[in-house]
């Protein structure tokens, strides 16, 4: 339900003239709610930017969202290729 709540607020913020992008951990809900931009990650709920105290991982995901903001020309949901593993092997 988090994904629908986030998606509905995201839609309202985007409609107000602010460009938005979101992380999606349940892609069917994000896609069904119809958001402008999102990136699906196969990470567990509670970890949208990855593992605690792993700044490089957080930055990688944020950078993917920033690139999505720079490149998407229509509503776009992408899947990022990362998988949930112990740090050192996640890429």
């Amino acid at each position, binding site marked *: 339900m988090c994904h629908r709540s*986030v998606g509905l607020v995201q839609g309202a913020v985007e409609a107000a003239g602010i460009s938005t*992008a*979101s992380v999606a951990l349940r892609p069917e809900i994000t896609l*069904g709610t119809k958001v402008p931009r999102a990136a699906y990650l196969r990470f567990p709920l509670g970890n949208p930017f990855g593992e605690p105290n792993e700044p490089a991982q957080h930055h990688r995901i944020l950078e993917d969202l920033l690139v999505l903001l720079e490149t998407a020309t229509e509503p776009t949901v992408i899947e990022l290729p990362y998988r949930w593993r112990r740090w050192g092997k996640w890429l």
Partner: protein
Amino acid sequence: MESTVLDPEDFRAQYEKWVQFVAANHHGQNNRVNEEPAFTPLQKPLAEARVALLTSAGVHLSDQEPFHTATIAGDATYRVIPNDVDFSAVRFAHTHYDTSSAEQDLNVVLPITRLAELVERGRVGAASPIHIGMMGFNPDPSAIADTTGPAVAAALTDADVDVAIFAPG
């Protein structure tokens, strides 16, 4: 490996199943979607943009009222989290995900430190003075769609935000 673009049609059956699940198990018959999805192209380069963050992971401050988690009605309210927040004052009120990662490092759900680093590097122009905390468990999303969404949009507009990054709890 590269990123791939997802086709909503591939997920439609799974989505409909989830909508039915929420209706049957959480008294959430009033599903909502963004009927006419807006799309706002970047209005300026990211290096000049002011960026806000939003999390639905139940983030609130110790001196703010916690979100209501012990209710089937959910909680559609939101909390303003200042960019210069003292991390030790952050609390997590949410019973529908494992908060242990977030409790170890707020950046896992609300990457305020990472945003400061992006500003320092010049990748984005500035951090918004405010970010938004919500609690995502809302079986009936009517209040989220009709009240919270427009209120958050107004708060971020007032803060001169250009770009907002959202993450589910």
